[in-house]
C-alpha cells in the first residue's frame, strides 16, 4: 500500500485516473478501521487533506463553501456556521468523539455510504450540493444524489468531492438533527432524523424538508411528511401525520442494532421532535441572516 498526498485537485485527479485501485481519504476514520477489519487495502491511498480548498470553510452573500476534507471540528468550532445551521452542526458534532471529529469530514461521512451517516440527513434537508472533480473538470450534484446504496456512490472511480455548497439560510428558517443511539456517544445511529422548516410571515409552515438516516439502504426524504407540514402549523394532527409518514417511509432491517418495528416507531418520534425543534429555531430567526 502506497500513501500519496497531492497538493492540488488536478494532481489528485490525474493520480486517480492513472491508478485504478487508488482510493481517496480525508480523516480515514472509516478507511483505516475498515482495512483493519479485513477489507482489502487499495494499492494507493490518496490523502486529500493537503489540498487547500478541501480543508476550508468560507462564505459569501449567497452560500457557504465547506471543503470536503475539512475536519468536522472546524465546522462545529465555527460560530457563524453553527449559528446559521445548528442542525447540521449538531449532526457533525455527533460523529464519534472529539478525537474522531478532529479527523472526520463531511466528504468521508457521505462517501463512506453508510445509511447511518449522521451529517447526511442534515446536509440533505439544507439542500447541500457536492462539487465533484474528475478528469474532465467539475460537476455539481445534490448531496441526495451521491449515495446510491450501502457503501455505494454515483461517483466514478476517478472522481472525488472537492467541496460542499450550502445556500445561506433564508429568514424564518431553522434546521435540526436528532439521532437515537442506546448510549450517549461513540455509537451508530439506530435512527436519525434531520428537518428544516421555513415559516411564512403568518407563522404557518412554508417549506419543510425531512430526511431519515439508518432506516433504509440510503438516507431517505419523506415527501409525505413535508406535504403534511406545508401550509399548516405544528398541531397534534399534523405532527402525527409527520410521524406516520416517517414510519411509513422506512425500509429498515432487523439487525444487532435495532428491529424493524423499533426503527419504524422511533423514526416517527424523532421526525416529529426534529420538526418541532426546527420550527422553534425558525421562529427565533425572524430577520434575515
Amino acid at each position: 500500500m502506497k500513501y500519496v498526498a497531492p497538493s492540488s485537485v488536478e494532481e489528485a485527479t490525474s493520480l486517480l485516473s492513472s491508478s485504478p485501485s487508488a482510493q481517496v481519504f480525508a480523516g480515514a476514520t472509516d478507511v483505516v478501521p475498515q482495512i483493519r477489519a479485513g477489507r482489502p487495502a487499495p494499492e494507493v491511498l490518496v490523502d486529500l487533506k493537503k489540498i487547500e480548498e478541501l480543508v476550508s470553510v468560507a462564505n459569501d452573500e449567497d452560500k457557504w463553501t465547506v471543503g470536503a476534507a475539512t475536519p468536522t471540528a472546524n465546522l462545529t468550532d465555527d460560530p457563524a456556521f453553527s449559528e446559521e445551521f445548528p442542525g447540521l452542526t449538531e449532526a457533525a458534532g455527533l460523529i464519534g468523539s472529539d478525537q474522531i471529529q478532529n479527523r472526520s469530514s463531511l466528504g468521508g461521512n457521505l462517501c463512506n455510504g453508510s445509511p447511518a451517516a449522521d451529517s447526511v440527513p442534515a446536509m440533505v434537508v439544507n439542500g447541500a450540493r457536492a462539487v465533484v472533480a474528475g478528469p474532465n473538470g467539475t460537476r455539481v450534484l445534490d448531496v441526495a444524489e451521491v449515495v446510491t446504496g450501502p457503501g455505494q456512490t454515483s461517483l466514478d472511480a476517478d472522481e472525488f468531492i472537492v467541496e460542499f455548497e450550502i445556500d445561506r439560510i433564508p429568514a424564518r428558517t431553522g434546521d435540526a438533527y436528532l439521532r437515537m443511539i442506546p448510549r450517549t456517544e461513540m455509537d451508530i445511529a439506530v435512527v436519525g432524523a434531520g428537518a428544516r422548516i421555513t415559516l411564512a410571515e403568518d407563522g404557518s409552515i412554508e417549506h419543510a424538508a425531512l430526511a431519515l438516516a439508518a432506516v433504509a439502504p440510503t438516507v431517505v426524504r419523506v415527501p409525505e411528511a413535508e406535504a403534511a407540514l406545508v401550509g399548516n402549523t405544528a398541531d397534534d394532527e399534523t405532527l402525527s401525520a409527520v410521524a406516520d409518514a416517517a414510519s411509513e417511509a422506512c425500509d429498515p432491517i432487523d439487525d444487532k442494532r435495532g428491529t424493524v418495528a423499533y426503527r419504524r416507531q422511533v423514526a416517527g418520534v424523532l421526525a416529529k421532535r426534529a420538526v418541532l425543534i426546527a420550527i422553534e429555531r425558525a421562529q427565533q430567526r425572524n430577520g434575515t441572516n
Partner: protein
Amino acid sequence: MAITEENPGYKWVGTRPIRPDGLEKVTGKAQFGADLMLPGMLFGKVVRSPHAHARIISIDTTAAEAMVGVKAVITGGDFPDLAANGAHPSEIDVANNTIAREKVLYEGHVVAAVAATTREQAEAAAEAVEVTYEILSHVLTVDEAMADGAPLLHEGMITKGVDPAPEEASNVASKILHERGDLDQGFGEADVVVEREFTTKPVHQGYIEPHAAVADANSDGRAHIWCSSQGHFQMRAYSASVLGISPGMLKVTAAEIGGGFGGKTVIYLEPLAVRLSQRAGRPVKLVMDRDEVFRATGPTSGTRIKVKMGVAKDGKITAAEVWMAYEAGAYAGSPVGAAGMTAIACYDIPNFVVEGYDVVCNKPRVAAYRAPGAPMAAFAVESVLDELARDIGMDPIDIRLANAAVEGTQASYGPKFPRIGFVETLEAIKDHPNYTADLGPNQGRGIAAGFWFNAGMMSSATVHINENGTATVVTGSPDIGGSRQSMALMAAEELGIPYESIKAVVADTETVGFNDVTGGSRVTLATGAAVVDACRLIIEDLRARAAKTWDVELDQVEWVDGQAQHAEGAQPPLSLKDLAAKSGRTGGPISANASLNSRGVGAGFSTQLCDVEVDPETGVTRVVRYLTAQDAGRAISPDYVEGQMQGGVVQGIGWALNEEYIHDSDGVMENPSFLDYRIPVASDLPMIDCAIVEVPNPAHPYGVRGVGEVGIVPPMAAVGNAINDALDVRMTDLPMSPVKVLEALNEQRD
C-alpha cells in the same frame, strides 16, 4: 462519606495519598502485557474455529510452514494428551480450551498457532493453515442445550449431583440444591406470592487491555513468561499442566494489568507462546485483537432463572423457591454454584429451595466475572422482592430490613454469619439525601441489595528495610485494583514510617512466596494480612536490636511512631532510620517473610439506589442519579474502595441496559467490538455516589472485608426496579435495551 463505628486513630490507614502507579501509567511508561519487546522476538497469531461446533477432520500446516518468515506452526497435537495421561477432568478442560484436539466447541476456539518474523507474516500464515471440519449441530442457550435430543458437546457428560446418577449423557454438567424448612407451609403463610421468570445474556468483563503474553524458552526446557494476568502463580500452574511439565520449569513475570475483573484468572495464550518459542528457538509474543477477546475469552453466563417468593403483610418473607440454569459455555463450570449460595443470602428466610443447573453450550467457556454468578440471581430475586414490597405497600428498604441477615443468622448456604454490615448499608441509603430527592417526569427510583462471600486463600509477603530506613514491600499479587497502595498504607501504619517511604512491588514467581490469584476480593484481606505479619516480624527484630543496643530486656522496648522507645524513657529513642543505619552491627539486613492461609473472610454486602429517566417514546433509559452503600469492613484506601464500588456499579449498569453477546443462527458472534458490544461511556453515567460503610471484619488486623466484587451484584435489579417505578413496566429480560423497553411500553398501551 465514611461511617466509622469507632475511630481507632490510624495515621495512614484510611487516607487518600497519591497512587503509586499513577505516574508511570499516565506517562505511558508502565509495561502492560503487550509492551515487552525482546531481541529476536517473533510475532504469533492464533488460528480460530469459524464454527460453533465441529469435528476437526484434518489440519494441514504445510503451506503455512513454507511461507516467508514463518518459524513455527503448532496444533493440538503438539501438546500432551492429558486425557490419555489420566489427568483431572478440570485440567483436561483447560488444555482443550487452550487448543482444541478433536472437536471445536465454539466460534473462536483455538485450533493452531503460528510464529513469524513480522506480525503481517504471522497473520498471512494463520490464514494459510487449512483446517477441514465436519460441522455439527450446535446449542447456544440453556433452553437449547437442555432440550430433549439436543446435540451433545461432550458425549460422556453425566450430570453430577443427581441421585441416582442419570444413565444418559446430557449437556447438564451438574445440579446444585439448597433446601430449608417446608416450602408448601411457607407459601401457605404468605399473604402475597409473586412468581416471575428472568433471562440474562452472556456479558464480557470488558477489560480494556486485551490478553497478551511473551514467552522465551530455553533449550534446557525452562521458559520465562511475561503476561498480564490476575495471578502469575496460577498462570504458571495452568501453563505447566497444559505443557506437561513441572511448574518449576516456568518463571512467570506479571506485567501491569489493564483490567481483569475475573477474566484474567485463566490462561489462553501462555502455553501456546511457550510451545511456539520452543519450536522456533526465539521469544514469541502473542496478543489478542479485541474481537478475539470477545469470541474466545470471558464472558460470564447467560441464564434463565425462575423465582417464586411469598411475604406476609408485615413484610416477612415466608418462602422462596429459586430455579436457575447457567450457561457454562463449552466446558463445565458455570458459576451456578456461587449463584445458588448467594441468591437469597441477604435474607433470613425460613423455607426455601434453591435449585441450579450448570449447562454447557457452544459459546466461549465462561470465566469469573466480579462476584461470579451472583448478579443474575440477584437481578431475579431483588426484582421479585421489589414487586412484593409494592404489593403489600411497604417501603423497599423496610422490607429488606425486616428480613435482613445479621450476626448469628444461619446463612442460606450453611454457616452462621459472624458480624456483618448488611443492615448498616440499608440504613446508609435511607439516611442519604438521594433517598428523598425529588423525581421528575418519567423518572423512577429503584433499590436492590447484594451479597458476596469474599475470599481468603493463600498469600505471601516479604518486607525489606533499606539502609536509609525506607521499606520495600514485596508481594506476588498483581495489582489490579490498587493493592500496592493498600499494602504500603498498612505497612506505614505498622512500621510507623511515612507512606512515601514505602515502595510496594509485585515480584515474579521466583522472587516471592506463593500467592493465589488476585480475585475474590481477597488481596487487601489476605496479602494485606501477610504484609502486616511481615511488618510485625520486622518490628520484633527492631525491638530486639534496640534492646541489644541498650543492653536491656526485650520487654523494656516498645515500638511507637516508627521508633524504638525505652519503656521508662531511660534511653533516647532509636528511629527506624537509626536502626537501619546500624543494621550491619546489630545482626545484618532487616527483612522478614510471612506466608499464610487467610484466617477468616468477612462477607460483603451492598445496597444501591438508582434513579432513572425513561423516554417513553424511544425506550431509552438514562441513569440520572446513583448511590451505592457498601460494607468495606475498613477502607484502607478510600479512593480505591470508592473506585471499586463505582466500577462495579458501572459494569452493572452496562449489563442492565445494553451489554449482551449477540450470536447469529450459526453460532457466530455478531458484535465482537466495543462499537456494538456497548459498555457504558463516561457521558452515559452520572457521578456514582458512594457511602462507604465500615463494620470491621474481626478476623483481619485492620478489619478489612474486601470490596472488589459485591458492587456489581445489585445494579441490574436496581435499574429494573427504577424503570418499573418510572413507567410501571417490569423488565425481566436483560439487557433492558431501548428496543425491549419500548416493546414493553407498547404492550402496556395496547
